[in-house]
């Protein structure tokens, strides 16, 4: 195993390179400057996914089990787990569209499931927004 640097550290090396050397060099070219800022943000998402992605998948899997009443185990192999989640989400999506989750009780449980899953994804992809939304929920002060 090559872990010096490990995957997170490799990504960090690219991010530091972009931030410290590339961005200052392209500041005069607005489009390239913006695209490079986007690239840095994409790297940060990838770093968070490396750190937390597996745990999120496991949480989503367990939540799906609770929602559907199944007791399936998630694969330890990341790719296999991701593929299996897609299969289960495809089935769930079809059931939702077919109206199988329309009844109030099961609809509420589905809403909680998708809010939890999206909440986890938001922490990876837009942590600042996730914090703002949590603050609204904590205070009950919603936009007017």
């Amino acid at each position, binding site marked *: 195993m090559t872990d010096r640097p490990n995957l997170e550290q490799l990504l960090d090396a690219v991010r530091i390179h972009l931030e410290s050397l590339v961005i200052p060099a392209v500041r005069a070219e*607005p489009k390239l400057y*913006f*695209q490079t800022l*986007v*690239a840095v*943000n*994409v790297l940060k*998402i990838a770093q968070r996914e490396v750190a937390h992605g597996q745990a999120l998948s496991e949480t989503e899997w367990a939540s799906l089990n609770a929602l559907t009443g199944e007791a399936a185990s998630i694969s330890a192999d990341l790719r296999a787990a991701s593929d299996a989640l*897609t299969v289960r*989400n*495809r089935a*769930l*999506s079809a059931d*939702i*569209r077919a*109206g199988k*989750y*329309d009844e109030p009780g099961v609809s509420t449980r*589905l*809403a909680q*499931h*998708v*809010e939890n*899953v*999206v*909440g986890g*994804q*938001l922490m990876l*992809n*837009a942590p600042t*927004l*996730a914090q*703002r*939304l949590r603050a*609204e929920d904590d205070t009950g*002060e*919603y*936009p*007017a």
Partner: protein
Amino acid sequence: MPPLSPQALEAKLAAYLTEQTGAPVQVSGAQPLAGGASRDSWAFNATFEDGTSGRFVLRRDLPTTMNEQALTRAQEFALMRAAHDHGVQVARVGWLCEDPDVLELPFFIMDYVEGVSVGRKVMTSPDLAAARGALPDQMARQLALIHSLNPSDLDFLPRPLGNQPARHAVQETYATIDSIGAVVPALEYALRWCDLHTPQPDRLTFIHGDFRVGNLLVNAAGLAAVIDWEFAHIGDPCEELGYLCMRDWRFGADKLRAAGLSPREPFIQAYEGYSGVTVNREAVTWWEILGNIRWAVICLAQAQRHLSGQDPSIELASLGRRSVEMQAEALRLIRQSNTQGVSAL
């Protein structure tokens, strides 16, 4: 198609305008305008034989189409002219050219209007503090005016199937999800909720289709011009009111639901005052939710353009990961609507 150099564009425009006006026209100062991922926009100066001169904007198609539902340049030209004649604050359009021999792709030329269109700048620039105070009322007034445009003069505008804009929007969104093979239970839940709560429109009107900060030119006095008319269609005016309330169009000013500039209720009341029409608040909320779902789906569709190899781009790839922001917002609004009750939709 290689990008045009400013000098090449100036020469081609001078030749075109000379032919159009029947007298020599000099063109100078061509500059690409920032923003607008779907169109190529340039500002330039033109001096006419009688000594008059002015600054103009060229708006031209790009070879790749961001959205197939967008109007053609000829249609956009026609409706901007109609809007201008109706008193809407919009740049006066001058020339339309669909001849590929001139600039390869269709374009039109309109008057240059000074102003800021970048959403974040409008929301934060100290120079625009007074403008931000004036904008909500100005936007409400312009929307009322836009919604009173006579659509019978613009028979090319897309109309909702069965005159049911909410149902049509839900069906279109399902179709987009299926066309890109997106598997997202959160979107399915949110869209199913919308499908079960579709509001009936009180009326159908002309709709700008992308009315928000970011598509307005703003100067120190406030709203200078409404731009980007390519998504105009016939629909429920509540769609337009809900759309500008979307969190992503508040550009960080989260607490102020109407475009990040005003609480929603006084904004709707101002619109009611100008339009003389009572607005169904719950329908506005429904359209805000649907707007978030649509934007979430468009993000995934844009990422698909990158993933398919059709249009490799870090920006498009990153948009795919932004989808979850709008998903989260739609789910929150649905939760709030469920708590408050939606029976009156």
